[in-house]
């Protein structure tokens, strides 16, 4: 059973990603802030994290990614970032923070599904 953690401050978008990735062999967890995401990631050690970049609070998606990458407990999990900022500089920032891949909003659920299949094998 694979575990996927979906991090987004908007419940509607969490639902969209969760539904997109829902499969019989997968469990989808949800977090609505960076802080919550860090807690869940340490406890559950998901295989994949879908990380929204812009989130209110003290830890945004970039910061959360950096922390996860530096934590021996979580540095192995794959991170795909979801960002509404599509400029090259923003993407570079995400990759520098340690993301494995990125999707720019609005994205196609079908494409996201294919990408996740590829990553999870």
């Amino acid at each position, binding site marked *: 059973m694979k575990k996927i953690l979906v991090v987004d401050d908007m419940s*509607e978008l969490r639902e*969209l990603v969760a*539904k*997109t990735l829902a499969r019989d062999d997968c469990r989808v967890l949800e977090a609505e802030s960076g802080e919550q995401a860090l807690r869940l990631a340490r406890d559950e050690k998901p295989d994949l994290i879908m990380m929204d970049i812009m989130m209110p609070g003290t830890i945004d998606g970039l910061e959360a990614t950096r922390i996860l990458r530096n934590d021996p407990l979580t540095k192995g999990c794959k991170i795909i970032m979801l960002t509404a900022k599509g400029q090259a500089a923003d993407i570079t920032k995400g990759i520098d923070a340690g993301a494995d891949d990125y999707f720019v909003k*609005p994205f196609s*659920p*079908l494409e996201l599904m294919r990408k996740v299949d590829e990553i999870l094998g």
Partner: protein
Amino acid sequence: MEILRADCGWVCLASDETGSWELTCRRGLWRKYPEEVLRGTIKHLQREFARNPDPVHVLSGRKSPILNDVMRRAGAASWGAVPLKRDGLTIGCMVVSSGSKNTISPSRKQALEVIAWQTGCALARVRAEEQLGGSDREVPGEPDGQGELVCRYLPDGTLIFVNDAYCRFFGRMREDLVGSSFFRGLDERDRELVTHRIDQLVPENPEDVLEVQVPSPSGDLRWVRWTRRAIFDGDGRVIEFRSTGSDITERVTILRALEESERRYRTLVETARDVIFTLDMDFRFTYVSPAVTSVLGYRVQELDSTNVPDTLTESSRKRFLQAYGDLRAAEHASPGRSFSRTEQIEQYHKDGRGVWTEATITFLRDGEDKPNGILMISRDITHRRHVEQMKSDFVTTAAHELRTPLTSILGFSELLLFKNDVTPPESSRYLEYIRKNAERMADIIGDLLDISRIESGEGVPTTPQVVDLLETIEQMAEFYRQSSSLHRIEATLPAGPIEVRADNDKITKLFRNLFDNALRYSPAGGLISLTCESFPEHYLFSIQDEGIGMDPGQAKRVFDPFYRVDASDTAVSGTGLGLTAARNVVEALGGRIWMNSEKGRGTMVEFTLPMRQPTDCEEGSDHEEDPRCG
């Protein structure tokens, strides 16, 4: 000299014996100019004109570094020197100068050239006359052949002699004129000028020059320039005056036209909001228009002999020199063709900050079209750059803001179309998401259109009706309580209805904008409270949060379109239009909106809306619904 507005003027002519130039006539006061300096200057002038007989002028035309230096040391800030020529030979020169800058302008230099030419003609005629032996008392004068007017009169003005030209000029017989008064026909001002000046004539300085207007036989006024010499008895009392006059009407007319045209351009230049500079070829300011005070904070005099590049920031200096290089290259490629370059440069304000200006530079040219200075027109574009920056920030945030609802619309519709495990309840929920997000996009677009209408001065179209805000606010508070579990939301409202006359959609959006802002900038667990108090004629609404707050500088600008407290803040989305739209709605309804904010403590937005008065009469369909109207 008065015409040329000079402080000082002199004429020097070559001496018949030695050939060296001597001062023959000098008018005006020039404290800094003792005789020996003047003699030295005249030597320089003679040498200069021997080398090159063209006029020399500090601003336009030919330049002479030596003379420039000599004149400047003597205190002349603007000056011009033109040669006097008799039969093509340079026999001396006329010089006018002024202690203040730009008085002797290029057009006044031209006037001086006209006078010098006429003087040259007169000298040629006098010489011819002398060679003929002076058979007639009449002195040839103006080029049109009309002779100079000659007369003699007693101190009380009684004429004792007039020549033929004088009789012809006034269209009267000699018998009528002799015995009459020299002052007749002069208007009061001229008469006063003439009689007043008499007292100033003394044996050491027996001559003066007057320009007066006299009526001609045809009735129009002519300008006559009288050169008057007083004749004294042994006790120094004036016996009589001998005057020679010439009709200078045409010359005065030309000079007046010149002056008027110069005045017109000067007004144009001095009232322009753009700063107009002229520079010499070493980039020193030679003229600065008064607009400089409002743009750069300097008074005009403070920039005297300042070098332009010194007033620019490092990178702008390079750009300015580059632009100048382009001008030079263009001039080299096709000499004499006018060419200009426009560059955005940052100039230092007197208080040290940078002011962005759009500077256009082009060459000023002398009589032969050779560049002899630079014209630079600077427009303050600080505000424009600021607006451009805000607009570009806005495009980024608006694009982002539209992306969020689009993500839902595209995402959920694709799930509905292609994913086969969507249950019926999910499917209707997804459709609701799609509809709601499409509405959100329509709202954003509506905001944008409203703002562009307001920016272009059109105003927002409203369809006002009586709205009870009590229900609207309660529903909204409930909605936000449910959708945002992270925040606490409290609404303290009066018991009765909150009735205002407003456009329902717009007033609803106003409250939504304010709630959105409060939520957006508040931490989890923060309290958002809305209150409404009623006053006799208005309601006072207040929405307070415990969010990140703002410093006073930011709070001052939040109502500006596209302004966002921190455009780089990746954690907070928004178009920067919400508060602008809010202000527009409140003000359109006759209310006021303001904000109190403290960095780190939170923000409170307050606004008033006029209470709907019982006498308010509704139009159209509202009429029937409101029993209080009739």
